[in-house]
């Protein structure tokens, strides 16, 4: 038997916008339940939708980035169904005329580039949030009416890894275009996966994977689902159409519900939103946005670059470093240890407060006016006191008291004192070098530039 996994994705991205898709209600996260709500968000009779321009601009950017055909006449349809989280009893969506059609995205996979076709992209509104407490269900309409775009791929994806790479690329595009913050964990990006197995050229039933909360989990869930389906088929049984979730601990997909009857959503075109023709001016406005450039530095590992690009503060800081000609290996290393630590512990709030001074500090460090150790001390004090770097340097009294001759004699003394380390170094043990350096730092009270010391030390070791 020959097997081929057929995978398609449905991706929801919550749009970054100050107000909802059809009302002026704010979208701020974490507000008291049912406080970010205007009459339409709770479907009070007679309230009417007014389309949010910012959301249209975001959709246009995405359509453009994914090489799609833009439908220049915006229309909305009603998806009719009853559910407690659906205030109006219908969802405003673009069923018949999605704003984008027939696009593609090329992804980098092991053996080269793969094109994933994108069927369509449409705008729609989010539903309310249900909170189950005991035997009661509470409803929070703050999310009701928030703007979403849904991206639906053709079934061009062959395995979990491709799906993950595709999703990460979509996330990167959405983030860099200011369309969405694309956080799978927080629900601002949601993914449904359709997985089926083609056996000897015949399509199998589709299994839908839901509630996937991380890119890695998407990959693992798909791979384990493919494995499960293969096992079923090999044992002569057939895969049933159903919805499953992923159990991270056991690395298996778990049955959620059957997909026996298809819901008839009775779609029809809405007549409360006037069709809007997208003007060339609006397209120009949408596309004039300069995407945040991805940081790319040769000397950093791909994983490190990913980390920088996926962190809003680090990517911002590295953009600044590039502008300031500070994106060197030396400064990068400083930032990736010191600054990354601060972000992990306290987030970026403090850093944003001292940013200007931090840049000054990094200049001094790059120009070797401060040693690594000194820069670290100032950095720590900067975050604590928020004094200027100049003030802090004065206070620390770092003046380099050692001229070259002095330094040379200190090193000579050390080399005599720690003879065995010198032998070890000569025997090829690099650790010994660090040991020697540490001793010299101690002796000079960290006041001499470490590179200067290292150069001098290496020179002397050569001579030995």
């Amino acid at each position, binding site marked *: 038997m020959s097997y081929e996994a057929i995978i398609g994705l449905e991706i929801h991205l919550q749009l970054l916008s100050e107000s909802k898709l059809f009302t002026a209600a704010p979208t701020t996260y974490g507000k008291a339940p049912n406080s970010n709500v205007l*009459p339409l968000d*709770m*479907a*009070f*009779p*007679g*309230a*009417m*939708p*007014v*389309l949010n321009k910012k959301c249209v601009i975001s959709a246009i950017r995405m359509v453009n980035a994914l090489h799609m055909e833009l439908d220049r006449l915006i229309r909305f349809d*009603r998806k*009719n169904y*009853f*559910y*407690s989280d659906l*205030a*109006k*009893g*219908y969802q405003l969506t673009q069923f018949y005329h999605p704003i984008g059609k027939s696009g593609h995205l090329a992804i980098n996979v092991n053996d080269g580039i793969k094109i994933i076709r994108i069927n369509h992209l449409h705008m729609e509104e989010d539903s309310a949030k249900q909170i189950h407490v005991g035997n009661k*269900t509470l*409803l929070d*309409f703050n999310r009701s009416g928030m703007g979403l775009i849904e991206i639906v791929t053709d079934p061009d994806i062959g395995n979990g890894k491709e799906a993950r790479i595709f999703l990460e690329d979509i996330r990167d595009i959405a983030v860099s275009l200011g369309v969405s913050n694309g956080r799978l964990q927080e629900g601002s990006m949601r993914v449904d996966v359709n997985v089926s197995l083609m056996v000897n050229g015949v399509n199998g039933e589709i299994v839908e994977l839901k509630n996937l909360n991380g890119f890695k989990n998407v990959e693992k869930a798909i791979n384990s689902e493919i494995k499960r389906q293969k096992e079923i088929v090999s044992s002569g049984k057939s895969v049933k159409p159903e919805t499953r979730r992923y159990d991270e601990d056991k690395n298996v997909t778990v049955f959620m519900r059957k997909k026996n009857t298809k819901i*008839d959503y*009775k*779609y*029809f075109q*809405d*007549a*409360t*939103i*006037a069709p*809007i023709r997208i003007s060339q001016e609006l397209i120009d406005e949408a596309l004039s946005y300069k995407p945040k450039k991805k940081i790319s530095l040769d000397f950093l590992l791909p994983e490190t670059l990913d980390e920088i690009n996926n962190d809003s503060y680090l990517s911002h800081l590295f953009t600044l470093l590039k502008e300031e000609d500070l994106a060197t290996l030396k400064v990068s290393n400083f930032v990736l240890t010191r600054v990354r630590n601060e972000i992990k512990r306290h987030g970026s709030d403090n850093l944003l407060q001292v940013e200007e001074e931090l840049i000054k500090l990094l200049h001094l460090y790059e120009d070797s006016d401060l040693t690594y150790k000194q820069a670290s001390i100032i950095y720590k004090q900067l975050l604590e006191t928020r004094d200027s770097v100049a003030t802090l340097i004065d206070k620390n009294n770092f003046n380099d008291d050692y001229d070259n001759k002095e330094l040379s004699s200190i090193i000579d003394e050390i080399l005599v004192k720690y003879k065995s380390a010198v032998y070890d170094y000569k025997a090829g043990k690099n650790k010994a070098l660090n040991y020697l350096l540490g001793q010299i730092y101690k002796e000079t009270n960290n006041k001499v530039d470490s590179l200067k010391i290292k150069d001098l030390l290496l020179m002397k070791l050569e001579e030995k």
Partner: protein
Amino acid sequence: MEYLDKNIYEIHEALANKKVTPLDLVKEALDKIKNDTNNAFEYVYEKEAIKLAEELSKQEVEVDNPLWGIPFAIKDNFSTKDIPTTASSKLLEGYLPPFDAEVYTRLLNKKAIPIAKTTLDELAMGGTGSSGHLGKTFNPWDKSKTRMIGGSSCGSAAACAAGIVPFAIGSDTGDSVRKPASYSALVGFKPTWGRISRFGLFPFAPSLDTVAYFTRNVKDSALLLNVLGGHDIKDTTSSSIPIEDYQSLKDKPYKATIIKEIYDDLKDKTIKDAFDKLVSELKQKGYKINTVSIGFDLAKAIYSCYYIISSAEATSNNANLDGIKFGVNKEAETYEEMLFKVRTEGFSDRIRRRFVIGSISLLEENQQEIYLRALRCRRVIVETFNKILESSDAIILPASPTIAPLFGDDIPKKSFAKDAMISDNYLAFANLGGYPSITLPLGFEDEMPFGVNITSHHFTEAKLLKIAQTVEQITGLKDLSKK
């Protein structure tokens, strides 16, 4: 001395000349409402109207604002902040809306005084004025109380016809203002779809829904359009085409068209004679009047097409009524059970029937055959009438083939059977096409009024109102009411 049976300009003049104050007018209205037996009112602004009138009575009359201090009534399917609004549905008993409809706001800004919310057919669906939660609304012209005033804007029509208010706001999705106007000797005017903001109007079928209103004469209708018409950012379907001065167009002989199949369907001799007489007098005034055939099938299709589209849209627009967010709630174990209880007890059989028909026509397996077919049919109807209105200034026809029917007469007639009464159900063509359309009194039979309807092309209200004024001059029937 009573004033509220007069027209807006007459009352305004009395106010300007200090013959009467807003407080006198409000007291007159409240007094009349107390004694009214037509069952027209949902909510009466007793305290609110007196308070507003007292404030206004202390101020100078705004002589350039004819609506200043004028009491009016508004159909109970317009959202009015903190004033109970039920749309005549049991499910919305006790509902206090959190915002005002745009038309209501505009009238308040002009310092007109709301005096009552008026009853209607349940959720504005129905043409009999007898299906609301208050039961039958009677026709002031019929003292035996056996004849309807028509719906769905029955309460607004009755309030205006009984001389309680000089104008009343309604809504027109099929003929809900223009038909009752015919039965009650009023001017009933539905402007172009998009001319007046619908923000705050409870949606029934948004592709057809139009704010409409009753007045005692054509001039008052023109005045109101100048106040209510124009773009509203809260309703994106409201047009940004600027409004005109609807009273200033020069009178000239226009060209009008009679639709053969609708005219041929008339059986009532009095109505036919009155209409023929009007036509010949218009001709004498230099009007060119021709008759055009649209085909029997198309004429017959207007009502079924309207019924399918409106029912389909109605199921969706009323899906918000689940008792969870507002309205009458019911205890239940599950959401499904709650929905079932609320919507079974909250809607009448008639409404549930409409919803079922609407739902069935939208189902995937039927959509092509029913709903989409109705949409295609709509396109053919609209193309046909567009063509007529491109070569003619207006379509003119009797607004109804009979005087107000007896209660109980209506139900069997409204079927899609072969004998569907074309001349009784054609007015919805103006909703299918979104045309401005006006009904005004044409004559009387057995002391009961009947009207004539004139419909013109999109956004030609100024011309339409001029033609209506000419008709009004010919018939001499205006400023009518029945105590």
